[in-house]
């Protein structure tokens, strides 16, 4: 079945989708330039081929002549001309490339996190989203990380693409010039759901964008949602999974209300008080299996308000 977000957006021209970034016009122009060069050569070669086959075909009463074994003038011509053309294409390509490689000093930076198999975009004010929202006519720089395998971020309408290699920061920049929403693909094979690791690129006017951003960065009303929201943004996610898997610290899944053995031997049940204490001064209580790693968690005292802590507690409670 087709994923809901695989929308059809018709190509703008025979070869290309619409031109939605500053790179597009250059790339398309250059593409067509090379295309015409190729067509000229191709037509010459095929026409010559057909003509020779017909003109010199084997037939009664026709005797070919074994001369014409080489012709320096000719051979030099068809060595030099292609060389010159190749040089031009190369140089022109480098110009365009350096353009794509060198972002202006003033850019709006968005952090991209690619995981198998979804995109997460994080904006300077901490807002997170799964679709990429960018303001129009403003240079945007993507600072991209991958946590598992190599991915590659490709926005056809922007004509730009960069691999996201784990263990590295990968930078890509563009400037959108057309409002609307465009496909965003993963183009480096990354496993089962590679082909549905897609998102939308939403280009909005500055006002709309700001409005959206404000909305996106506002915490939800419902405490559980709010807890999840905090869980994703305050770094809990880095060490504590919510699916039972072990990352660094213990998973939150179904942990509430269970009794756990502490490093000092006593048994404690995980309740609101325990959670609050682990958030504010984690070192005071470590489960026996995690005593070694307890130093890796630092206190959130002063970083989280009481109602935020209770929201987190509600969230953890909700993870049956």
């Amino acid at each position: 079945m087709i994923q809901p977000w695989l929308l059809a957006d018709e190509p703008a021209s025979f070869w290309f989708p619409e031109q939605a970034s500053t790179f597009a016009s250059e790339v398309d122009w250059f593409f067509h330039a090379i295309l015409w060069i190729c067509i000229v050569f191709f037509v010459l070669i095929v026409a010559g081929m057909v003509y020779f086959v017909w003109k010199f075909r084997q037939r009664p009463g026709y005797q070919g002549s074994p001369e014409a074994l080489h012709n320096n003038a000719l051979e030099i011509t068809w060595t030099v001309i292609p060389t010159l053309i190749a040089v031009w294409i190369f140089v022109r390509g480098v110009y365009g490339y350096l353009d794509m490689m060198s972002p202006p000093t003033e850019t709006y930076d968005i952090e991209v996190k690619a995981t198998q198999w979804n995109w997460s975009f994080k904006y300077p004010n901490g807002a997170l989203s799964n679709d990429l929202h960018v303001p129009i006519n403003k240079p945007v720089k993507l600072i991209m990380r991958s946590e598992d395998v190599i991915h590659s971020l490709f926005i056809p309408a922007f004509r730009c693409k960069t691999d996201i290699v784990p263990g590295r920061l990968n930078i890509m920049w563009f400037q959108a010039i057309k409002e609307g929403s465009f496909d965003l693909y993963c183009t480096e094979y990354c496993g089962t759901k590679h082909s549905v690791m897609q998102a939308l690129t939403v280009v909005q006017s500055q006002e709309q964008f700001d409005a959206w951003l404000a909305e996106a960065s506002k915490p939800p009303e419902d405490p559980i949602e709010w807890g999840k929201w905090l869980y994703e943004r305050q770094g809990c996610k880095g060490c504590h999974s919510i699916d039972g898997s072990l990352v660094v610290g213990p998973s939150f899944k179904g942990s509430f209300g269970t009794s756990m053995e502490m490093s000092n031997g006593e048994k404690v049940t995980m309740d609101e008080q325990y959670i609050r204490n682990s958030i504010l001064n984690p070192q005071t209580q470590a489960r026996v299996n995690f005593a070694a790693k307890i130093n890796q968690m630092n206190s959130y005292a002063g970083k989280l308000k009481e109602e935020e802590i209770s929201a987190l507690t509600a969230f953890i409670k909700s993870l049956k």
Partner: protein
Amino acid sequence: MSATELDATHNHSHGHDDHGHDHDHPAWLAHHFDDAEQQFDSGKLGIWLFLITEVLFFSGMFCAYAMYRSLHPEIWTFSSQFLNETLGAINTGVLLFSSLTMAWAVRCAMLGQNRGVVACTGMTIACAAIFLGVKAVEYSHKIDLGLLPAGFYVPQVAHPEHHEGLSKWLIYFMVVPGLFLVVLTAWYGQAVATANSVQKQIAGPLSVSALCFFLGVGLGLYLESGEAAEHGDKAHVAASDSHEETHASDNHSEADHAKDGEHAKDETHAATDGAVSTETASADGHAEASHSADNEIISPDVNKPNAAGLFFSIYYCMTGVHAIHILAGIGVLTWVLVKAAKGQFHSEYFGPVDYVGLYWHLVDFIWIYLFPLLYLIT
């Protein structure tokens, strides 16, 4: 006839008209060759091409070595102190000597002195065995210290497990050579009993070589223990600074986990870590960490697999593949030994010795580079 044509033909100076027949072809000349020289040249070119593939094969690992050494110099200087230069040097000497005997064997073959070939190849095999014996000691020692490839790297350098007598790994390494020793000596005994001179010429050198493996082990153990004391404090120094660094980069990792990706923050962390580790480093007189001050690389926390393990990965890959080549070398040398014992070589047919020789020298050639690159980093 043009000049090129002439030198094309000169290989085939005679015997071209009996295309397709084997009469007047001696046993050692394959049917599709016209004369001994053509056969020799073909073999020689073939073996050179094979050596070329070997060089490129190793170049992959040298490339990995160069890359990661230049990316993490501090890891390299830190880790290589756990390699024992003396053992490395001894092994280098042994291999060089084996190269000498090998070259000598080739000379003997060219002069048709088959007994000489037997003696020389025998010595070469013996040297190979010594080399492997020493390697066995080195490997078992590293394994005991938990100095393993990145994924399994859990160093107990501060307090290595003190096992009585031999390391169990060393014992595992000694099983197969032990079996060989028994079988070969028995075989030699039989040869003596039946007064089968060819078999004696083969079994003798081989059983001595098997013995030499244990000679190598003994040598290795002796030198290893000699080093132990000095090695010990090295380890402690290493461990102690590694501890401080643990904290340093723990703050970092937690900073990582509390991922609020503003760069500024990350970088400040990185910077401070750099600072801390350079202090610890200078405190212990370890120059390595100072590299980390500039680019954002954090100085290695040697207790974490994702630091020093990489060095040992590459160490095991390079020396391991090299050791496999030594084993293969022993195999082909034995083949030559057998042919020589049967007295098959003479001044028109010595190719096999020459080819095996070239291969053996290449193995030596590789080690000549491995030794300084792995053992002698300061």
